[in-house]
Structure formats: C-alpha cells, structure tokens
C-alpha cells in the first residue's frame, strides 16, 4: 500500500512477530505459573504471585529499566546469557521478552481464573481411571481451561501489540530490529507534523488487533460449543 512507507511496514511486521512470539513463548510458562498459583501451596507462593503482577504495577518504563539493568551485555546476567548465545539486548527477541513480561500478569490471571473454575471432581474421576497427574492435566484440566488459555493468549497478544514503555526503554527503537508499531507511533508523535503518520499506524494497529480478537472469539465459540451440548 502507498500510505505506509517501507519502514512502517517493517514496524508492522516486527510488531506482529514480536507479539506472536511473546504470546507463544510465555504461554507454557503462564499455564504452569497459573497452575502453581491456583493449585499448589508452597513457600514463596505469595512472592511468586507478587512477582507475576509486578509488571502491571510498575510504570512500564521502570520494568524496561530493570530489564535493561539485568539483561544488558554489561550486566552479569546479560553477560552470562550472551556467553551461551542468548541475547536480548537491542534485538527483537528483547522486544518480545519485554512484551511477554508486560503481558504475563494478564495471561496468568486469566488462566488461573479458569483453573480455579475447573471442577476437581472431574480430575478426581480421571485419577481413579488410572490417569497420572500429568495425564489428568493434559487430558482433563487443559481442555477444560482452554477458554481461559485463549483469553490469556489474546490479552498477552493485545498487550504486546500496544506495549511501548518497557520495550523502548529496554531495547530502544531501532528500525527493523526493535522498532515496533507503538515505538514507531511514538517517534511520529515526537516530531512536528507527525500526527497523521502516527494515526495511520494506529489504524493498522487497531486493524491487526481486531482481526486477532475476532479470531479468538471464533475459536472460543468453537471451544464452548465442544464442551456445551
């Protein structure tokens, strides 16, 4: 299309990639964390719960700042990770990490809510049929919490599409590498006369997110129908 320049399209593509991977990579951890918080009693549970919520509570810039301080090549952890080939700083992977962390509390909360609504009697029944904890989880719990997992995933994806503060603070705003849609919008908004361009990007952002939403609604209707009658 004409009305977006190549750099803008790059930002759109990057945002999609970042959001998709942020969502996908955090999903298993999110499910596990939600399960642990909902079902297990262990020392440090309240701590974990607090930690999960932290990115929601803190101004995004602070989260970005903390990420920068711990994962930059100059920080011990960042250096150690870099030694084994895992680099987040100033890469799209870092943008995905920031987005994933920002969306994590939303994802975990949604999934946890679903887990708490699962009737333990069904899990008990599965156990009496010889299913191990893991099999019970995979065949009973997980399918039953699918609506929650879907909600969690779409929230994480949407958040990732809109995340700005933590991302730009952590991985900067490098076109093609870390310039996501929100960063690009920000850049336009910082210069005189950039509003029109910013609005075009906002429109793209909305369109993408609406498509994702519609997809998730459709999926969850399918899931609901399966469980329903």
């Amino acid at each position, binding site marked *: 299309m004409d009305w977006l320049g190549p750099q803008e399209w790059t930002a759109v593509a990057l945002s999609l990639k970042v959001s998709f991977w942020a969502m996908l990579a955090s999903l298993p951890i999110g499910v596990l964390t939600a399960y642990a918080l909902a079902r297990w009693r262990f020392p440090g549970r309240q701590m974990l719960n607090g930690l999960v919520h932290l990115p929601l509570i803190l101004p995004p810039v602070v989260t970005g700042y903390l990420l920068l301080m711990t994962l930059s090549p100059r920080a011990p952890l960042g250096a150690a990770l870099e030694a084994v080939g895992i680099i987040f700083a100033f890469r799209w992977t870092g943008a995905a990490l920031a987005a994933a962390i920002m969306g994590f509390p939303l994802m975990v909360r949604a999934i946890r809510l679903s887990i708490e609504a699962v009737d333990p*009697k*069904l899990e*008990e*029944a*599965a*156990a*009496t*049929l*010889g*299913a*191990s*904890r893991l*099999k*019970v989880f995979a*065949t*009973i719990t997980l*399918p*039953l919490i699918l609506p929650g997992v879907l909600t969690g995933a779409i929230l994480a994806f949407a958040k990732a599409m809109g995340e700005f503060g933590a991302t730009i603070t952590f991985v900067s705003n490098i076109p093609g590498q870390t310039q996501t849609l929100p960063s690009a919008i920000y850049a336009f908004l910082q210069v005189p006369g950039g509003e029109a361009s910013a609005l075009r990007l906002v429109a793209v952002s909305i369109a993408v997110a609406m498509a994702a939403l519609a997809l998730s609604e459709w999926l969850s209707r399918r899931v609901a129908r*399966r*469980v*329903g*009658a």
Partner: protein
Amino acid sequence: MLEIRLQHRFEGFQLDVDLALPPGLTVLFGRSGSGKSSLIKAVAGLLAPDRGRIVLDGRVLFDDAQGLNLPPHQRGLGVIFQEGRLFPHLTVRQNLLYGARGRAPNLDRVVEMLGIGELLARRPGGLSGGEQQRVAIGRALLSGPGVILADEPLAALDEPRKAEILPYFEYLRNQSCPILYVTHSPAEVARLATHVVVLDAGQVLRQGTASEILGDPDLVPAGIRSVGAVLEVRVARHHEDGLTELDAGGVPLFLPRVASATGTMIRIRIAAQEVILSRTRPEGLSALNILPGTIDSLRAGEGPGALVALSTPAGRVLARVTRRSAETLGLAEGVECFAVVKTVAIAREDIGRG
C-alpha cells in the same frame, strides 16, 4: 480381601468403621447420609481419612501411621460415582475409553449391554440422566479395574435396563473382581451381595452374608419389605414349558427359566411377605412351591404383623403373617407347617448365581 479401618470427622458427622471384606461383592447398605459414599471415596483415595489403614490383597493403600497415601491412579480401581462425573469435553466414546489405555476388547459388549451404542459420538452435555449413568458405568468397567467401587450405579435406571445390567455385575463378581457396591434396593442386595455391610450414622450397624442380614428381623434398614430368606439351591432340570426345577435340600422348587446350567448352585431370595403359611399341605393352588418345615421362632413385630422363622429342608425361611392369622392357625414354636411360595413371586432380580 479388602481391609478398611478408618476414622474421619466432618462437622457433625463421624465415620468410624473397621471392616475386613471377603472377596466377592460387598453391598454397602444404609440410609441417606450414613457415610456410604464417604467410605467409597476413602477407598478410592479421594478422601484421606483422619486415621486408619486400608489394605487391598496385602497392598497397603492408605496408612496414616506410615504416612502412606497411595494416589488414586495407582490404586487400580474403577469408580462409578453417584453423580456421574463424565468429562464434558470428550465424546461418550472417549469417555468410555478414557481409562482403557487403548485396550478395550470388551467395548462392544459393554456398549451393547448398556444400550449406549447410539450415543458414542455425542458429548455428555445433552444426555439424559439415565444415559449419563450408563456411560459412567461403562467407563469404570472398561478401565479394567482390579476393584470396582459402584455408588448407586443403577439408581436412575428403569427396571428393564436394570435387568439387563445386573447380570454383568454378577458376572464380574464371579470373575473374582472384588466389588464394593452401594445401593438402596433390597432386590439388588439379595441378588448381588456376597457380603452386606449396614452403615448407620457412620458406624457399622451389622455386617454378614446377604442371608444373615436380610434374614434378620431385627434389622430392617431398608424397610419391612427387605426381610427375607436367601437360599442356596441347585439347578436340577430345565423343563420344556419354560420352568426350571431347583433342588432345595430335596424339595423341588419351580422358577421361570434360569440361565444357569444344570447342576450349578444358585441363590434365590424369598421375601418374608411373599410367603403364605398353611397347617395342612394345600391342594389345588396355582402356587407350585410348597416347603414343609417346623416353626423355629415366632415374634410379634411392630404393628399387626408377626415374623415366623421356619426350618425347612432348603434352609431357614421367613414368613411375615398377621398376628390374627398366627392365632387363627395356632402357629407357635415347634409347630409343623407349610410355606407356600408362588413361583413367580420369587422375583427375577432376586436370582443370583451363588
């Protein structure tokens, strides 16, 4: 052999039992709220009792002293829950096969017996109450359990359907699969039970063989109609007119065709209120079964009735008669008389393989 010793407190309810159950089918019998389901759950591993020890054939399932509590999936049980508990996201077929680990050689047979062939592709959501219960039975049976715990499995079913499913439980019992079976139906007790445990407010009120329990006039946990005698008899002959002749200690008894082969021992139940007594051998009655005997005891019950216990060649038979008849006929201990039982009054459900 299943040993269950356990104590558990709920607010306002205390379960306290100590049982050693022989192989075969044990019926848990008792009023609503007496602790039957709780006991089942404890055996299944779904309720950790405050104190106790549960041992199945030498394998310790639970022992609070040892701090041992085997998780349900390692206990090898098949549980039929009072509330169905079908998996809503799986089809009936997937529900049935859930515990089967891919091998269910008797799937077709069980499906046919339960009459759920047409439901296989459906999900439990829209099933009728009885359909759900049947699927739940099938699911437990198909998991190939070492022990079956069945909590009122037939409560929501119509009589013909019950009649189709009961023989399967008999079959299982005779396959030496231990079964713990909760029911409120005396007919099911008499037909299925090897052993009966009567619970009352969490305590074991009585336990014993089906004939001991059902023949005990002091014990009417399920109401007056459940008193009766259970006799072990031999299948003597199958007649051409559809009757089967039984040998009850030398006395012939007639029943509608029984499926068991000639020579096998079977169990029949004669409910006390279905027996008529006569001082002389009655003639010209449509009832074919007449057992001579001597009155062992005669006790006035509550109300206008009296319970008469009779020694017959076939075993002890109970008869419930009115006190008025007892007086008129001059019934008393030691008096000889005849017990008249209508053929078909020996209910179909009350016949079990011994």
